[in-house]
């Protein structure tokens, strides 16, 4: 890294950390129903929503009601999006006359957006109308993010409250989260992105003549769209000369900002944040990384405020920041040193394959760490093209359970579940029945925490195992062997952990991935969320145990280090064999000169 790259990286983290406290405190006010500087404008809107929907704002819910409201609301949203995708050709704002989705792809896409995954087995510019993008996908980007936040807020209330069964009102939390937090930041952010050159229009796709005609070989397809092969099995190609190019348009800025802010990751275009209309300048690039980490980072402060000790939040942020910096350091190190096989051929320097060269190497790597450490999944580089060890970083960040900042809401609640496990074991080690934030950790909390941290991992283990012996999955890999195994592992890791990024190189739009992936996304999202709410309900009912000399402080370095170790060890023990057969073998093979 040169001095400029150091500067921009350091500056980025300074800005991020500076924003944690003000935004975190603001969000605490929002969820505690206090007045904020936006209240004069938004209170009338809020009241209107309650009146229209018949929400009794003071009526609090127990965990079961809260969970039912969450699940049913998501079910309705899923049904609406599924219908919209199936009926896309009949709906307005479709200048390109794109056809409807097939049911398998529609199912996968609807679940993917409802679960905050944004796994995209389609290309936005060729498969989705403006109506679908704005009314369907963008709305889900807001709502799925607000859902995650509502769940973590309920959990925080569980820690903060004493001897009650009530966790708050789901509808109020959803409304306030969207209205006070997601919408205002999105409006400001979208305007900023437009200022950088992100487009926002409903125009037809533009066809422009190329300055220089390009001639290239194109694979010949048969009537069904499959590649034709000659007698020797090599693809048949034909020479094509392109004189003009079609440039897709659309309401991009409004969707771009919530894509990152809500850690959704579903790009307007297939190239996602590598596309110049989604991410035009280095400034917009860092701005987008900031948007990804903003709410997950600030929620730790919100947590601290709501449980009455902001140091507790800083400790968790410290753990997240440490793993993020560690991952960034490794990724930067291996990508900057490049591929030894190419070095032998005289191609020195960093591995630049699959990277958007408009952005610096550290900038790109930072984006990849942010997007996989959170459950965002937006990309500016092809993860498939990273060096084997480099590619293992995004994969590992996903497999750790999306806690390195993590998804909006979901990251913090998974982190808190890890903290409960860490507290349990360390509490035993100092000879006390364990307690976290003054709440005793007992059988029920253990069950729910284990479900929360292990659900996605279990889904990955099962689905990737099934995939490796299913011909339909194996034939979808672009590179068979260890790399193909990584592709499949990444795909299911991404879906089960609701990340949504892809390793690329895998043809995911086949029934196998669409259907099994839908299941993985659903289980990976709702099983932990409901478990978290159940834990919140149980915690809220407990009395508070004041700390004494014998209590382990959970807001200091020793506990933070222990928590980090627990996260890393649980991840490593669960996925070491799979990683050994994927990226590790690939890396060793590369070192071996093959």
């Amino acid at each position: 890294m040169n001095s400029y790259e150091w500067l921009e990286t350091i500056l980025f983290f300074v800005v991020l950390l500076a924003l944690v406290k003000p935004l975190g405190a603001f969000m605490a006010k929002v969820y505690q129903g206090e007045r904020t500087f936006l209240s004069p404008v938004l209170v009338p809107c809020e009241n209107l929503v309650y009146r229209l929907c018949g929400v009794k704002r003071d009526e609090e819910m127990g965990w079961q009601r809260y969970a039912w409201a969450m699940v049913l609301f998501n079910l309705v949203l899923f049904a609406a999006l599924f219908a919209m995708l199936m009926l896309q050709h009949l709906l307005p704002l479709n200048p390109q006359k794109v056809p409807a989705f097939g049911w398998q792809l529609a199912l996968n896409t609807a679940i993917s957006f409802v679960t905050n995954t944004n796994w995209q087995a389609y290309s936005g510019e060729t498969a989705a109308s403006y109506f679908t993008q704005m009314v369907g996908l963008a709305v889900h980007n807001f709502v799925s993010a607000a859902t995650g936040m509502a769940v973590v807020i309920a959990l925080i209330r569980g820690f903060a409250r004493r001897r009650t069964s009530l966790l708050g009102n789901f509808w109020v939390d959803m409304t306030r989260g969207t209205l006070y937090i997601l919408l205002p930041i999105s409006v400001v952010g979208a305007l900023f992105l437009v200022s950088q050159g992100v487009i926002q229009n409903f125009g037809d796709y533009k066809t422009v003549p190329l300055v220089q005609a390009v001639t290239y070989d194109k694979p010949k397809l048969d009537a069904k769209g499959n590649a034709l092969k000659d007698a020797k099995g090599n693809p048949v190609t034909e020479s094509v000369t392109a004189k003009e190019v079609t440039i897709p348009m659309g309401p991009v800025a409004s969707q771009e900002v919530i894509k990152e802010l809500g850690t959704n990751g579903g790009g307007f275009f297939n190239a996602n944040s590598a596309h110049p209309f989604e991410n035009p300048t280095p400034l917009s690039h860092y701005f987008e990384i900031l948007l990804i980490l903003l709410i997950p980072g600030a929620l730790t402060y919100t947590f601290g405020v709501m449980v009455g000790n902001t140091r507790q939040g800083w400790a968790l942020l410290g753990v997240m920041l440490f793993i993020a910096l560690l991952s960034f350091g490794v990724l930067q190190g291996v990508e900057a040193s490049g591929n030894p096989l190419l070095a032998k051929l005289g191609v020195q320097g960093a591995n630049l394959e699959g990277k958007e060269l408009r952005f610096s190497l550290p900038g790109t790597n930072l984006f990849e760490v942010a997007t996989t450490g959170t459950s965002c999944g937006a990309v500016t580089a092809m993860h498939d093209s990273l060096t084997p060890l480099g590619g293992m970083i995004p994969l590992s960040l996903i497999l750790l359970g999306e806690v390195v900042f993590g998804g909006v809401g979901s990251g913090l609640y998974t982190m808190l579940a890890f903290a409960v496990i860490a507290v349990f074991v360390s509490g035993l080690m100092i000879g006390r029945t364990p307690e976290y934030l003054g709440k005793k950790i007992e059988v029920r909390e253990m069950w729910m925490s284990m479900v929360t941290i292990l659900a996605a991992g279990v889904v990955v283990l099962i689905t990737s195992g099934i995939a490796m012996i299913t011909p339909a999955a194996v034939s979808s890999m672009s590179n068979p062997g260890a790399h193909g195994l990584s592709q499949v592992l990444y795909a299911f890791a991404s879906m089960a952990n609701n990340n949504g990024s892809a390793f690329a190189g895998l043809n995911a739009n086949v029934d196998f991935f669409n259907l099994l992936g839908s299941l993985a996304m659903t289980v990976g999202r709702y099983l932990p969320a409901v478990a978290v709410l159940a834990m919140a309900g149980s915690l809220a009912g407990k009395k508070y145990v004041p700390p004494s000399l014998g209590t382990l402080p959970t807001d200091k370095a020793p506990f933070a280090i222990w928590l980090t170790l627990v996260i890393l060890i649980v991840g490593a023990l669960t996925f070491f064999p799979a990683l050994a057969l994927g990226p590790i073998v690939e890396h060793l093979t590369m070192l071996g000169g093959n």
Partner: protein
Amino acid sequence: MSKHSAEPISMFDARIMGPALIESFKKLDPRELWRNPVMLCVEIASIITLVTFVRSLTGANLEPAWFTGLVSAWLWLTVIFSTFAEALAEGRGKARAASLRKSRTEVSAQRLKKPEFGSPAETVPAESLRKGDYILVEAPATIAGDGDVVAGAALVNESAVTGESAPVIRESGGDRSAVTGGTEVIANAIIVRITANPGETFLDRMISLIEGAKRRKTPNEVALEVLLIALTLVFLLVCINISPLSVYSVKAAGHGTPVSLTILVALFVCLAPTTIAALLPAIGIAGMDRLFQKNVIALSGRAIEAAGDVNVLLLDKTGTITLGNREAVEFVPVGGHTEKELAEAALIASLSDETPEGRSVVALARKKHGLTLDSLPAGAENVAFSADTRLSGVDTGGTKYRKGAADSTIAFVKALGASAIPANLSDVVDRIARGGATPLVVSRDAEIFGVINLKDIVKAGIQERFLQLRSMGIKTVMITGDNPLTAAAIAAEAQVDDFLAQAKPEDKLKLIKEYQENGFMVAMTGDGTNDAPALAQADVAVAMNTGTQPAREAANIIDLDSNPTKLLDIVEVGKQILMTRGNLTTFSISNDIAKYFAIIPAMLLSIYPQLGVLNVMHLATPMSAILSAVIFNAVIIPMLVPLALKGTKFRPMPAEKLLIHNLLLYGVGGMIAPFIGIKAIDLAVGLFA
């Protein structure tokens, strides 16, 4: 302090090892093993490898039979080591229970019609006694059942229960009325009202507890099991997942063999937290047993663990902080009377007073003033203490001798027409009260003679114990029926943190509820019947064995030595149990890293030779690598049995320091130890290959 007459039995005594070995095979029964799900999984794994071994013997195309056979043998040993550890922990308790049972042999009892000496008696076997029966026990005789002394006083040898050979006094009324079936009256006679039906007696409960028959898993144990079961499930899936992944890799690489069932099963057992799961039952049982060695009976494992969390300790003053009975130490005359006059009056007023305080007044008067009067003149009338007058004394020939609290005595003499109260009385009373003692004013008719200084004697060395408790974060609160002035003085002398004076039973209950409401874990020690409601409310309730039956029933821990500072030991054992569990869990999981490095390269080597780099221990062959990991995983269990039974050492230090210490020892140690162990075993295996 007590001398234990019970013979201490080493846990590695042949008398325990032998039966434990037999027991450990009996425990292989899946119907018993299902209580320990992780080990049940290991047993199923052992069966699978055994079947594979038989198949490979009959010519199926599998790995060499010797390999599968050895893996299977070591997996079976893993299970047996675990059941053996549990049997060993139970063994010592069983030996103790057997000796207790002997003391129950064929006892007969003298059942009385009415609870009076001289009432007609019939001889019945102990088993036919029921609650509410009265029995006469005359020395020498064994008490036939649990009960309360309703008349008389006797010397009782309770060594059968406590291991304490010095006999104790049991008498009617007060806090020493409870007797335990199986103990022996060695002097005098008492009438006992039976309070427990046969089979429900203290001794019965003790035997069943010690034998572990009624042992239930504590909530904390169950929570830990949740962690272990969840991890086991994940590791099961990890191993299942390897199978298709290796099948695919073989196809892609074009050579090698998919990972075999035996190796997957071996990997699963190595990864599953078998070390802690195997020792978990033993840790809890051994903890109760360790307490028992200290003459403390815990009626539930939960109570011991709760003791580890206690942050407030309520101590009944009498008998716990102080020596129990107040003693007269001084006569202070007032209003021109001499000390001898006062002593005489006090002696007469106390002669028929059978309370320990009364006796101590008599003793002091004789010792200090050489008074020899030892019986009251004929016709003297005893005036017993009553709650109304709060006075006691004697009427002899029209002269009224009284002693009692200052205000009661003053009221009494005024009623008799006293013209003036000696001027210096209130000074004397105040001085004595401020000193933490009880002033007892003595009067003859309408004249006040002076004051007896009744002093509470604080037990020697109690201050150090409280200091230790404080350093562990436990606050001590003294509870007493004394007035606040007296209480404050004793509290200061004993160095307790706080006190509750003039406490009525409902006050104690209220105080405990208040503390609990604020999230404190409250322990209480008590012995009197009036302590029972508070004991029932406390999280940890320690009753003295000398205490009354209601107190013992309300408690969840009984101290056979009746030494209230035993709570320190109980807290320590409670913490040790939790720490041992936590440390072994961390150790067990840390071990997995080394096991991965042993097994993963070994099992994938045929597919990807380049994975040989991961064989950092340079284990000789894939088979010896896998075998070494399996053997290490098995032998670590018996190696840790002494630790599980003795518990990890408890050092009072701040929580953070303790965590770092244990993390370094069991976490980092747990990562390094298996690298060394597996390598050593691999070298040893190499000698035979």
